[in-house]
C-alpha cells in the first residue's frame, strides 16, 4: 500500500534516510524507501566471533575488501563494481560507498560527538566558511532525542568542546584501558584534557537491542544490535508501523520537476532487471549520501534547469568538505611486557582527546582557525595479519620480542575541521557513465593552508604526547606528506549546504530545497561547515529535526 501511494519517497537507507523514514512513519506517513544496494540482514550475515584465522589471508584488507575481509561493507569500499567516479587532473579524492541496506551505518566507527556552540557560527567568529542557520541551543533538544533513540554511551564532563547531554540521555561509558590512561595522564601534563569517547554503542538494553558484550569488532557489524546500525534499529522500528516499504536494488538516477518547481517523480534503475522505473510521492527526501544526492540533483538537469535542479544558487556540488586526517605512532618502552588482561572493550576508543585550543584561537595564538581531536590506537588487539610485523630475527628470541611489544604501541589519529574552499567540489563527468548509464561525479580537491597548518600542529602535539610517555617519536613528516587524501576520512559533507539565503545555499534550515516545493535533503550534504567532531550524529540529528518538520507540513497538507 505504502509502495503504491507513498506520502514520501526516501532515497537511501543509511543514517539520514533511515532516520527520516523512522520519524515520518512514527508520525503516520507512508514511506517508500529506494535503496541502491542489496537487502542485508545483520542478524544472519555478521561474522561475530570469527577470528582472523577464519578468514582468507588472515583477514587482511584487499582490493575487494579494503578494510579487511570481515568488514561489513557489501559491494563497495573505495570502488563499487561498475560504478566509477573520476577526479580532475591534479586532484586526489577517495569516495567510500557501500551497496547494502543500511549503507555505511553497518560498518561505521560509531563515534558520536555533538558539535558545540563554537561550531555553528564559525563565520561570525573568524569570517571564514559559512554560518549555520541556527545555533547550538536550537539543536540541543534534538541531540538529546537522537542520542536517546540511537543509544550513545559517554559521559558529561563539562569539557568546553563537548556540550553535555541532558541527564539520563547518555548510557554509561566503559572504563578506560591502561594505554588510554597513560595517554590521558601524559596529555594532562601538557595541559590537555582527555575525555570518555561518545559512541553509538549500547551499554544498556534499548528496544529489541542488547547491550554490548565487549568481544567482537564493530566494523564487522553487530548482530545483537548493540552497535548502532539502521538495519537493527531505525529500519525495524519504522517497519513495525506498517507504513514503510523498502525497495532494495533501486538505483535512483534523477528526479523529474514540473514547471511549478515540484518534484513529480523519482526515476531509478531496477538493478535486477536493468530497467528504469519511476515512483512519485507528495514529498521526496534525498539521503543517498552527500555526493550521491548532489549527483542526483545535477543529473536531473533538463532544458529548464541546465545546471541541475535545486541549483539556482550554483552551490550544488560545491563546498565539499571532509575531515582532515593524519597520524603518528610509536612504541612506548614503559608499556613493554605489561600485565595482560582483556582490552577488547567495545573494540574502539574508550577515551580520546577533544579539541583544547578554542581560547588560544580566540586570542589569535594559532596559525589555523579550526580545531581537531585525537583518536587513539592502542591495546591488546586480537591477533591479525599484522601481529608481529616489523619484528626481526627468529626463534624463541623473536617470540619473546613479539610477546613483549604486544600492546606496547600507541597511535594517534588526528581528525580536524576543514574549511570549504573554491578548489574542493564535485561536478558531473559527462564523459563517464556507470553501468546503469548514469553520468558519474568528478571530484576536485586541494587542501588549503588552514588544514596544513592544523596538521603540522597536530603532528607536533602527537610527538609531544609520545615523548611525555617516554617514547621516541618518528621523524615528523611534512604536513603535505602527512595529510590524508580528500575523502579518505569518509566524512564528506557540504554539497547541498543549508543556509539563510537562497543565493548562497541549496536548502533552508529544514533541509528543504529553496527552489523546489517538496524536496528535502537529510544527508551530510546540508552541512554548512564540517567541525572536527565526526559528522554522523549531527547528520542524524538534523535528519530527525527536519523530517519532523516535513511530517508537520504533510499533516497540515502543505507539502
Amino acid at each position, binding site marked *: 500500500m505504502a509502495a503504491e501511494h507513498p506520502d514520501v519517497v526516501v532515497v537511501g537507507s543509511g543514517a539520514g534516510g533511515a532516520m527520516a523514514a523512522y520519524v515520518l512513519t512514527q508520525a503516520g506517513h507512508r514511506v517508500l524507501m529506494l535503496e541502491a544496494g542489496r537487502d542485508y540482514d545483520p542478524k*544472519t550475515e555478521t561474522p561475530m566471533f*570469527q*577470528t*582472523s*584465522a*577464519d578468514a*582468507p*589471508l*588472515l583477514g*587482511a584488507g*584487499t*582490493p*575487494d*575488501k579494503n578494510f579487511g*575481509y570481515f568488514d*561489513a*561493507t*557489501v559491494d*563497495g569500499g573505495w570502488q*563499487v563494481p561498475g560504478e566509477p567516479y573520476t577526479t580532475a587532473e591534479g586532484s586526489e579524492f577517495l569516495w567510500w560507498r557501500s551497496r547494502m541496506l543500511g549503507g555505511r551505518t553497518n560498518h561505521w566507527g560509531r563515534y558520536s560527538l555533538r558539535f558545540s556552540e563554537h561550531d555553528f557560527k564559525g563565520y561570525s567568529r573568524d569570517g571564514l566558511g559559512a554560518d549555520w542557520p541556527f545555533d547550538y541551543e536550537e539543536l540541543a533538544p534534538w541531540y538529546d532525542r537522537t542520542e536517546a533513540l540511537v543509544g550513545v554511551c559517554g559521559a558529561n*564532563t563539562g569539557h568546553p568542546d563537548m556540550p553535555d547531554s541532558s541527564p539520563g540521555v547518555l548510557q*554509561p*561509558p*566503559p*572504563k*578506560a*584501558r*591502561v594505554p588510554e*590512561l597513560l595517554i590521558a*595522564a*601524559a596529555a*594532562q*601534563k601538557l595541559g590537555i584534557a582527555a*575525555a*570518555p569517547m561518545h559512541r553509538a554503542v549500547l551499554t544498556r538494553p534499548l528496544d529489541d537491542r542488547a547491550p554490548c*558484550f*565487549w*568481544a567482537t569488532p564493530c566494523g564487522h557489524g553487530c548482530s545483537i544490535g548493540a552497535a548502532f546500525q539502521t538495519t537493527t534499529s531505525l529500519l525495524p522500528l519504522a517497519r513495525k508501523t506498517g507504513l514503510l516499504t523498502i525497495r532494495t536494488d533501486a538505483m535512483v538516477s534523477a528526479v523529474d520537476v514540473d514547471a511549478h518547481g515540484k518534484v513529480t517523480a523519482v526515476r531509478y534503475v531496477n538493478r535486477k532487471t536493468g530497467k528504469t522505473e519511476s515512483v512519485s510521492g507528495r514529498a521526496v527526501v534525498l539521503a543517498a549520501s552527500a555526493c550521491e544526492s548532489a549527483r542526483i540533483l545535477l543529473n536531473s538537469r533538463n532544458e529548464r534547469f541546465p545546471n541541475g535542479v535545486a541549483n539556482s544558487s550554483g552551490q550544488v556540488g560545491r563546498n565539499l568538505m571532509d575531515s582532515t586526517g593524519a597520524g603518528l605512532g610509536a612504541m612506548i618502552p*614503559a608499556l613493554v611486557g*605489561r*600485565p*595482560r588482561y*582483556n582490552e577488547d572493550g567495545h573494540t574502539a576508543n574508550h*577515551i580520546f582527546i577533544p579539541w583544547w585550543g578554542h581560547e588560544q584561537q580566540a586570542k589569535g595564538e594559532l596559525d589555523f582557525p579550526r580545531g581537531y581531536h585525537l583518536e587513539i590506537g592502542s591495546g*591488546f588487539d*586480537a*591477533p591479525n*595479519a599484522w*601481529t*608481529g*610485523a616489523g619484528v*626481526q*630475527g627468529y*626463534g624463541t628470541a*623473536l*617470540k619473546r620480542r*613479539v*610477546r613483549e611489544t*604486544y600492546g606496547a604501541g600507541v597511535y594517534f589519529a588526528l581528525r580536524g575541521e576543514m574549511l570549504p574552499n573554491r578548489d574542493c567540489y564535485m561536478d558531473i563527468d559527462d564523459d563517464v557513465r556507470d553501468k546503469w548509464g548514469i553520468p558519474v561525479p568528478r571530484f576536485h580537491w586541494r587542501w588549503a593552508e588552514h588544514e596544513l597548518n592544523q596538521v603540522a600542529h597536530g603532528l607536533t602535539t602527537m610527538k609531544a604526547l609520545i615523548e611525555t*610517555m617516554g617514547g621516541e617519536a618518528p621523524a615528523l613528516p611534512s604536513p603535505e606528506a602527512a595529510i590524508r587524501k580528500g575523502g579518505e576520512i569518509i566524512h564528506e559533507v557540504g554539497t547541498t549546504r543549508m543556509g539563510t539565503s537562497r543565493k548562497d545555499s541549496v536548502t533552508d534550515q529544514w533541509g528543504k530545497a529553496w527552489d523546489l516545493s517538496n524536496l528535502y535533503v537529510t544527508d551530510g550534504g546540508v552541512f554548512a561547515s564540517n567541525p572536527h567532531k565526526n559528522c554522523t550524529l549531527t547528520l542524524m540529528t538534523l535528519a530527525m529535526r527536519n523530517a519532523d518538520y516535513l511530517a508537520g507540513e504533510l499533516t497540515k497538507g502543505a507539502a
Partner: protein
Amino acid sequence: MSKQGRDRLPRITRRESLKWFGMVLAGNALTPYPADAAASVVVGDDHWPMLKLAPVTAPGYGQDPDLVAMTAGPWPRTLSAGELDIVRLVAGILVPREGDVPSAAELQVEDVVDEWVSAPYEAQQRDRVPIVSLLIWLDAESERRFDQRFVDATDAQRVAIIDDIAWLDAQEIYRRPAQAFDRLRSVIVAAFYCTPEGSADLGYLGGKAIAGDYPGPTAEALRHLAGVLASLGLEAWVDPAAG
C-alpha cells in the same frame, strides 16, 4: 657487494650454478609456471634468482563474499610440495616449539603462506616473487654450503643459513634474501599468532562475551600502570567511567 661479503661467499662455480638451475626446474615441475620461471632465472653475484612468474589470474573472493561461511581464499594454490616442505622447515625455525606451545610448523602455517602467495591481489602478488625466490635461494644456498638441499640439511645447517638472513641489516650479500625473508616471516609469524595456540601464547585474553559492564584493567594492570606513571613523573588521570 661488500668486500666482506665477497670474501665470505665463494663464487658459485659454473658447475654449481648449472646444478642449481636444473634443481629449480625440478622443484617447480609441479607448479603451473615452471617453463616461465625457468626461462627467467638469472644468477647474480648473490645467486638471487630473478623470477618472472606468470601472473596469477584466478578471481578473488569478490566484494560480497559470504563472511560467515568462507574461511579461505577460493583461488588455486600455487606452491609445489617441495616448496611447501621448505616453508614448513622455515616455520619451525622461525617459531619453534616451546614447552606445550606447538611450533608454527606443527600448526600448518604453510597453508596460509600458500594461500597468501597464490592470492590474485596486488599486495600478495608483490610478496609472491620474493618469497618464491627465497625458497629457491634457500635450496641453492644449502647446496652451495653443505652440498645438499635445504630439506636434507641438518637442523643446525638450516639455522646457520637463516641466521645470516634474519635481520634487515644483513651483510650486503644477504640483503635480497633478508628482505624476502622479512616478508615470509611476517606471514608465518602472523599466521602462527592467529591460531588459538598462538593467540594464547601471545596472551590475548579477549574475544569472549562478558555479561554486564566492561570490567576494565585488572588490579595487577593498574598497579603496573601506577609504577609506569611514577617512573615518568606523571599524575594519574581520573577516569569518569571508573566512578
